[in-house]
């Protein structure tokens, strides 16, 4: 078995007396897509927040690319090769699509404490930004201000920014949220193209997309893992059907 790019052990997050994430252990390898599903309030976004460093775990450990990152600040986790996208689009609305990605790519310079040479002349940064936009089919929109992009394009930009930081591990929080059928199909296609080079943790409500993309599925209910396995195993699981799939068909 390959070394897991992302691994958690008995991860727990308490909010007061409530365990939003309770004893979650999972692993995701490079080139694999690990989807986390579950009803609203199951703790999926909290889980991603723990992995990205937005929140500090109450207990348990997180390892990324073989190094423990539990409790590290978000920017340090990011620098170790983790990129995350947000459920609610979190981009620089007043910057152009290109500048959004350029700034993301700039984060991979050894330091941005550089005061003289114009940022626009760092060609490696520009190239990384242009490539991320191209992968996400946004090249033609690169000079458009983010606030003027359509919802679907903003979601693509969100992923492009994540890619511009050259991550190994991708944490994607509902990349299809609020998208129409056509936009969703395009995003699923994009994620499929990205899967080979990355370890991808995908939180998503769209079951068609999840079953189309995931190599492994983890089902969470009330903060705990209900079941984990291949898509076939999950589909066949009686427990899961009772708790989730059967009762919420549209997802």
């Amino acid at each position, binding site marked *: 078995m390959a070394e897991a790019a992302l691994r958690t052990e008995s991860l727990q997050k308490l909010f007061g007396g409530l365990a939003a994430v309770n004893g979650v252990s999972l692993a995701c390898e490079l080139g694999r897509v690990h989807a986390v599903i579950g009803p609203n309030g199951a703790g999926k976004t909290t889980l991603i927040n723990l992995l990205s460093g937005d929140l500090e775990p109450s207990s348990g450990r997180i390892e990324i690319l073989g190094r423990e990152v539990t409790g590290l600040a978000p920017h340090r986790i990011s*620098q170790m090769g983790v990129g*995350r996208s947000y459920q609610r689009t979190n981009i620089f609305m007043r910057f152009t699509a290109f500048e959004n990605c*350029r700034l993301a790519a700039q984060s991979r310079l050894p330091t941005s404490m550089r005061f003289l040479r114009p*940022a626009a002349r*760092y060609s490696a940064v520009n190239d990384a930004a242009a490539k991320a936009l191209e992968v996400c089919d946004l090249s033609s929109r690169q000079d458009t201000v983010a606030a003027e992009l359509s919802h679907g394009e903003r979601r693509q930009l969100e992923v492009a920014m994540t890619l511009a930081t050259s991550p190994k591990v991708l944490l994607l929080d509902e990349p299809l949220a609020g998208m129409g059928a056509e936009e969703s199909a395009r995003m699923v296609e994009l994620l499929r193209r990205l899967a080979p080079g990355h370890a991808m943790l995908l939180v998503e409500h769209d079951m068609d997309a999840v079953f189309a993309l995931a190599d492994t599925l983890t089902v969470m209910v009330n903060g705990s893992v209900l079941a984990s396995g291949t898509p076939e195993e999950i589909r066949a699981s009686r427990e899961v059907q009772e708790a989730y799939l059967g009762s919420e068909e549209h997802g």
Partner: protein
Amino acid sequence: MERQPLALRIVLAAGLVALAAFPFVGEKFYVQFVTKVMIWAIFAVSLDLLVGYTGLVSLGHALSYGLAAYTLMLLTPQYEAAGFWTSLGASLGVAALAALVVGLLVLRTSGIYFIMVTLAFGQMAYYYVHDSDRLGGSDGKYIYVRPALEIAGWKPFDLDQFTHFYYVALALLAGVYFALRVLLASPFGRVIVGIKENEHRMRMLGFATFRYKLVCFVLAGVLAGLAGWLAAAHDGLVNPEMLSWHQSGQLLMMVILGGMGTPSGPILGAAALKVLELLFQSWTKHWQLLLGGFIVLAVLLIPRGLAQLFEWKRRG
């Protein structure tokens, strides 16, 4: 960073030419008045770096300004000139140190708390100076001799001559303006603008935002120190009011009036406020009422500041 609109650049170039020519036609009083306006402009530009570009609204920016001014006073012997470079270096050093110490503490807060904590530090320094006999107490102290520059017997300029002082202030203002343009285009400049737009996202992209904010805070403090040193040298006196929150508040008004987050806005704002102050003072002793009314109107009618008036291209 988009280029400045053409109209604004023409106005700037014309303004620079007019400023360079002014001492040939202006009376001494007005030449000195414009010198003071330019010093205010440097001070306002330094605050805009925090407020307009990084999104840090400071109400204690007079701290570095005042401490730099007092440093010059302390370094000036009673009947001799202080060295130009030593006093300037010491003033900027003190301003930087003050900004570093305060920045390390206040940058842990944000929003309204940041405003309150910067205000608190500013007032602490104000009261310390106000109550210190050695520093001249509430009256402040005179600086009888202006700093002098001498390189192997040669004096490139003499700050006792008001036209020389004028050109030194003009050169420094122009230098600060262009340095700011370079800074904003650099990777560092892009980071601070990103922090203003969405600091959380910057952190998630891997930027240690605290560090960048701290460096920015210190840079702004150094520029404020430059303005404080110039003001003390020009007026030949220091007093605690230089450190008071009135000073910081008036500065903030200049930045807002001129246009936050634009390189020329604070300069326009400083000029507008000081010229109107002079004008209204000549009309009535209730000039502050007029000035206040003007600011209210300006904020309502041109919310993005005077610099907005030159953005013809992007309107509509």
